[in-house]
């Protein structure tokens, strides 16, 4: 039994940290210019040099055939840098839902693995209700709309799960053929789009999608987001600790004041326990055979994970701002990027109460139990 990363996982995590440190300056410049995630050079390096989008794509689609845990480790590193790259959307949400679409070879997975196209799933948070698809002229048309779609205004491909006459289908839509408006995101490092589909041409991936598989893909996306949140917490804690060691007041480093030390200790414990919970979840959804005692169902696991990680990381980011003093409030300082990422991530994939109601239902209580 081993909780520590094994050598390959540790190497991947180190590689990812190096990568996101390397591209930090360029990525920040794009964020501050209001073009988050839209620096093609960075994505090209991320895709071809580092191969991150291919991690969780099966070998049959020319992917790296890695695990969700591998991807989670890379997303931790992305979070630590508040990267604006659409990695969670492309390599996480989109791949998760495409894999839910069944084993059939699909070009989208291959294109993602090759780093040729970025993608997002318009419904990473919600059930497919309100999105419909119909067959027309030998092709498919989808209708419906979604707000706050993760990188919805900038990726190449939109994945849409929609109701058809026969059941539930999964479709790809070229972003260029949908009507998408850019939102003004709370988190300036993560673009969001409102997507309006109105008889928009779509390509079918699967026509008999299993609702449960869809829900499972959402759970995986949430667990991957939790990994990214852990990185965000670590990144902002690092900023605050460095500040506490160097900033002097009353003739000594502020980190020597116990009130400050205890704030940071709480933040450390929050980030550390969140990491333990998030890594456990990523490991568990990566481990198919049940040689594991009491392995939770992924949906329950995602609820347990989000309910723990989101508030912990929000607290850590808020504590860090307090330790940074006035400078943490300044636009120039990166702290606000972390804080805003923490705030928005906690809400991006469904309200906290939804997770809590699911957990309460597991104990026979609350509105979700019937």
């Amino acid at each position, binding site marked *: 039994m081993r909780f520590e990363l094994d050598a390959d996982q540790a190497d991947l995590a180190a590689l990812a940290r190096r990568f996101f440190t390397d591209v930090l300056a360029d990525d920040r410049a794009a964020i501050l210019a209001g073009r988050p995630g839209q620096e093609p050079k960075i994505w090209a390096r991320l895709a071809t040099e580092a191969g991150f989008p291919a991690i969780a794509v099966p070998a049959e689609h020319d992917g790296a055939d890695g695990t969700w845990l591998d991807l989670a480790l890379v997303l931790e590193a992305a979070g630590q840098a508040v990267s604006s790259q659409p990695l969670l959307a492309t390599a996480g949400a989109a791949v998760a839902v495409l894999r839910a679409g069944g084993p059939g070879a699909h070009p989208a997975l291959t294109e993602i693995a090759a780093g040729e196209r970025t993608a997002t799933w318009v419904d990473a948070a919600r059930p497919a209700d309100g999105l419909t698809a119909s067959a027309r002229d030998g092709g498919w048309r989808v209708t419906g709309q979604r707000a706050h779609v993760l990188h919805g205004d900038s990726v190449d491909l939109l994945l849409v799960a929609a109701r058809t006459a026969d059941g539930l289908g999964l479709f790809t839509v070229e972003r260029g053929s949908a009507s998408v408006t850019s939102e003004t995101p709370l988190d300036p490092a993560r673009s969001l789009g409102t997507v309006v589909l109105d008889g928009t041409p779509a390509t079918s991936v699967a026509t008999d999608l299993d609702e449960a598989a869809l829900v499972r893909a959402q759970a995986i996306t949430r667990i991957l987001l939790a990994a990214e949140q852990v990185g965000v917490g670590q990144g902002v804690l690092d900023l605050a600790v460095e500040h506490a060691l160097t900033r002097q007041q009353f003739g000594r480093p502020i980190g020597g004041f116990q009130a400050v030390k205890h704030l940071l200790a709480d933040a450390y414990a929050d980030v550390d326990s969140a990491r333990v919970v998030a890594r456990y979840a990523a490991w568990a959804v990566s481990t198919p055979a049940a040689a594991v005692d009491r392995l939770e169902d992924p949906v329950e696991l995602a609820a347990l994970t989000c309910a723990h990680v989101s508030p912990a990381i929000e607290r850590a980011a808020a504590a860090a701002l307090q330790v940074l003093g006035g400078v943490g409030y300044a636009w120039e300082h990166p702290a606000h990027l972390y804080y805003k990422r923490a705030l928005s991530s906690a809400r991006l994939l469904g309200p906290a109460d939804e997770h809590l109601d699911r*957990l309460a239902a597991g104990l026979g209580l609350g509105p979700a139990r019937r």
Partner: protein
Amino acid sequence: MDLRYSAAEQAYRDEVRSTLRSLLPADWAGYGALGTEERARFDPWWRERLLESGMFAAGWPAEYGGGGLSIIEQSIVAEELAEAGAPQYPTPNDTFGLQLLGPTLMHYGSPEQRDYFLPRTLSGEIRWAQGYSEPEAGSDLFNVRTVAHRSGDTWIVNGQKVWQTAGTTANWIFTVVRTDPEVKGAKGLSFLLIPIDQRGVTVRGIRNMAGETELAEVFFDDAVARADHVVGGVGQGATVAMALLGFERGAGGLALAVSSRIELERLAKLIVESGRADDTSVTRRLARCRADAHAIRCLALRTLAAVSSKAVPGAESSVTKWFVSRYRQRVTELALDVLGPDAVALVGPDTVAARGPQPKGVDPTSRTAWIQAALHARPITVYGGSLQIQRNTIGERLLGLPREQRPTTAAR
């Protein structure tokens, strides 16, 4: 990262389950369902059953009468006992002898000390209390005033210890005493074993806020201890005392996660009984506790995995303590809020005095049980390194922030 149990470990779990089923009475509903008198009859009987089956002193090597189990097997035993609602340490002094002193003697004790104390601890003939704290040595653990001076083949001990859990039922106490009066702080201390049943030792019970005489203070007036009952060498007291605290870690974490889950199921029943199954202001707090119990399990897996690969659990154990101690308070505060106006009077069967979750079988609607649990949860952020001391440890050892002033333990 790989948290799977091996096939052998899985098989061992099944074996433990069926052993427990065969050992426990047919109508067993959990220790919490027993009345006070039934418990008094059950405890010594159950201690014998555990001993026979090798699950008592599970981690001790077989040569000392233990089960010789790996840390993972010990954890499995602890989990399955929690699941069955059967106590792992049936009599009040067992944890001190089995979990703390036993491993310390195996590591630091002389062959004579092991041969004398280990079998008698196992049989229950010797019942240990932990004598670290003193009136002037609380968080400042090594500000010890109790002195021992050498006289021929003996140590003559004078001073006072305080807050000894199960001190009134103990007949031996392991202590940290000052054997070199010239030195302050962590140096000049020795780890000394002292018999309690002698003229120079007085034990006075201390009643806790739940009304139980659970603690004691122990006075030494020219008490006598044998010269060869110093463990680990004269002057090594601080090292041995710290090592002992480390032996506590590892095997019990997953069991705590199990009993926390059982407690939440009981709390859910109380919520239903109180007609608040649809009150989200309560159900969502319960859900948060459910997520907390899951986090306790994940933290326990980390520790177990580390200990099983022989890594010494370091300051990360402070994170676990930080989390678990506050959780005990959160969950029991929720129980009081569910009881609402009924939390003001003790009604319902009395319970086991336990600082962890109550064992399986406790009546979910017993107000007494929930109220006592809430009272028992308060000192968890005080003893064994208070919450503030854990925060200092995290801040200094894990984050590298400037150290606190340590006037009395600055000996380095």
